[in-house]
C-alpha cells in the first residue's frame, strides 16, 4: 500500500503542478483586477470561456495552429474585458459607487452572458481538433507527460515572469502599484488612471483567456459554464492567497492544484472539488489576511 503510494507520487505531483499552474495563471488576472481596480469582477470567468471558444473556432474554421490560436484568443478576450469594463464598471467608478454595486453589476452580467452563450451553443462538450497538439506521451524518468502539459507549465512561467517584471521595472508598473495603493492620490500625481484601468482590464482578460485555452487544451472539453466552475476555484485561490496579492495567488493556486490531484488520487475524486473550499473557510476563520498577511484594505 505505502510502496504503491510512493511509486505513484511523482506522477501525481506533476499532474498537480500542471493543474495548479492553470489555477495560478487564472487567479493572477483576477487578483490583479482586484488589487489595482478595487473590484471583484465576476465577468472574469466569461473571458476564460470566451477565449476557449475562440480558440476552438479559430482552429476548426480557420485551421489556425495552436501558437496562433492561443495568443489570438487571449488578445480578443483582453479586448472584450476592456469593453465590458467600460460598459459595466466605468459608470460606477465615475459615481464612486460602493464596491458591492460593482460586484452586483458584474454578477448580473455574468448570468446574462452565460445564459446567452448557453442559448447559442448549448451545453454539450466540444472538443478541439486532435491535430492541434500532439497528445503522445513523453516519458521522463518514469513520469508520463504530454506536450499540452509542458505548454501549460512553460506558458505560465513565462507569463508570470513577464508580468512581474512589468510591475516591478516599468513606468506602467509603477502607475499600477500607485493606483493599487490609492487611486485618487495616483490621479493627482499625474497618473492617467483611465489608461491604467483599460490596460489592467486588457491584461487580466488576456490572462483569463490564456488559462481558458490551456485548460481547454489539457482536458479537451469546452462548454459555456467552464468559466463558472473555474471562477469558484478562483475565489478560493485569491482569498487563500490574500485579496490583491499576486505572490499569494501564485502559491495558493499551485498548492490547491497539487492537493486536488492528491485527493483525487489517494482519497476520492468525488471530494476533490471541495478541497479548495474547505481551505477557503479555514483561511477565513484562522488567517483572513491570506497566506502572506497583507492586511485587507478596509476602505471607508
Amino acid at each position, binding site marked *: 500500500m505505502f510502496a504503491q503510494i510512493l511509486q505513484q507520487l511523482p506522477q501525481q505531483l506533476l499532474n498537480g503542478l500542471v493543474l495548479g499552474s492553470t489555477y495560478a495563471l487564472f487567479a493572477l488576472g483576477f487578483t490583479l483586477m482586484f488589487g489595482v481596480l478595487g473590484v*471583484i469582477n465576476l465577468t472574469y470567468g466569461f473571458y476564460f470561456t470566451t477565449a476557449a471558444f475562440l480558440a476552438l473556432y479559430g482552429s476548426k474554421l480557420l485551421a489556425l495552429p495552436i501558437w496562433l490560436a492561443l495568443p489570438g484568443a487571449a488578445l480578443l478576450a483582453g479586448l472584450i474585458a476592456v469593453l465590458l469594463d467600460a460598459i*459595466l464598471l466605468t*459608470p*460606477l467608478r465615475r459615481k464612486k*459607487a*460602493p*464596491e*458591492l*454595486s460593482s*460586484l*452586483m*453589476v458584474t*454578477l*448580473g*452580467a*455574468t*448570468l*446574462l*452572458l*452565460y*445564459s*446567452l452563450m448557453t*442559448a447559442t451553443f448549448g451545453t454539450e462538450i466540444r472538443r478541439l481538433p486532435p491535430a492541434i497538439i500532439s497528445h503522445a506521451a513523453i516519458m521522463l524518468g518514469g513520469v508520463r507527460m504530454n506536450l499540452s502539459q509542458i505548454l501549460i507549465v512553460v506558458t505560465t512561467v513565462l507569463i508570470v515572469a513577464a508580468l512581474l517584471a512589468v510591475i516591478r521595472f516599468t513606468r506602467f508598473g509603477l502607475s499600477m502599484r500607485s493606483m493599487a495603493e490609492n487611486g485618487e492620490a495616483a490621479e493627482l500625481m499625474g497618473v492617467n488612471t483611465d489608461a491604467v484601468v483599460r490596460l489592467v482590464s486588457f491584461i487580466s482578460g488576456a490572462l483569463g483567456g490564456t488559462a481558458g485555452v490551456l485548460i481547454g487544451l489539457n482536458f479537451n472539453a469546452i462548454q459555456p459554464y467552464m468559466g*463558472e466552475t473555474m471562477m*469558484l476555484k478562483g*475565489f*478560493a485561490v485569491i*482569498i487563500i492567497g490574500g*485579496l490583491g496579492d499576486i505572490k499569494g495567488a501564485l502559491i495558493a493556486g499551485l498548492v490547491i492544484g497539487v492537493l486536488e490531484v492528491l485527493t483525487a488520487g489517494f482519497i476520492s475524486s*468525488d*471530494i476533490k*472539488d*471541495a478541497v479548495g*473550499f*474547505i481551505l*477557503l*473557510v479555514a483561511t*477565513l*476563520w484562522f488567517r*483572513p489576511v491570506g497566506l502572506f498577511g497583507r492586511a*485587507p*484594505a*478596509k*476602505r*471607508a
Partner: protein
Amino acid sequence: MTTFLDNFFFSYQTLIFALGINGLLALSMYTVLAVGQLSLGQAAFMGIGAYVSALLTLHLDWPFAAVLLAAMIVPALFALLIGGPTLKLTGVYLALATIALGEIIRIFCNTSDLTGGALGLSGIPNKTTFTLIFGLLALALVNFVLIARSRVGRAMEAMREDEVAAGVMGINLPAMKLGALVVSAMLAGLAGALNAHANSFIGPNDYGFDQAVTILSFALLGGIGSPFGPVLGAVILTLLPELLTALHDFKLVVNGFIIVVAVLYMPRGLLSWRIGRVG
C-alpha cells in the same frame, strides 16, 4: 364560482405557491442587503432547509411544525459559521464566502448517499398549504415593517447609507450584520422547506449559482427601500416568464439584465418609497 376558483387554483397551484415562496426568498435577500451586505448564499441556505426538512419528514416522520423549525435552525448555524469571520472584513469577503458555501453544499448533496446524490430526494409528502405560505409571508412582512419603524430599523438604514458613520454613532456593526445574516438564512431555509413539501421532489442542482443570482434579482428589481420592494420584484419575475412564454427560455438572461440595469440606472428599484418613522 367556487368550482371556477377550485379549477383555477388547481391549474395554477404551482405558480401560486412559487409566488409566495419566492416572496419569502426575496425577503431573506432583503434582510442582508438592508444592512449594506451582499450574500450569495440564499440559494444554499434554501437548499439546506429543503434537504434537512425532507430528510426529517421522510426518515424520522417529525411533525411538520418541528420540521419547519429545524429547517430554520440548521441554515442559521451555517450562517454563523460563514458570517462569524467574514463580517468583520470588507463586504467582498461575505459575498465570495457565501458563493463558496453554495458550491460545497452542491458538491455534498451530489455525492452523499444520505441526500440521494444527483438524483435528489423524491416522494416528499405535500404538506405545504396556501394558507401556510401566505400566512408566513404576511407574518414576515408585518415583522419587517415593525422592525423598520424601530430603533433597529433606523440602525439598519444608517448602516446601508454609511457604514463608517453608523459605526461612529455607536451601532454595533458586527452584531447587526451577523444578526441580519442569521435571520436571512432562517427565512431562506423556511422557504426551502415549504418548497420541498410543495413539489415532492428536490435535487442538488436546484440551489446553485443561477438560483442565488435569481434571488438577488428579485430584491434589486423591487428595490430595498422597504420590504415590499423585494416581494414585488419576486412577483414580477415569477409571473413574467409565465405571461410571456417566449421569454421562458431566456428567463436567466432577463434576470441578469435586470440586475445590470437596476444597479447602473435605477439603484432604488421600482418601489423606491421608504417606511415612515414613528416619533
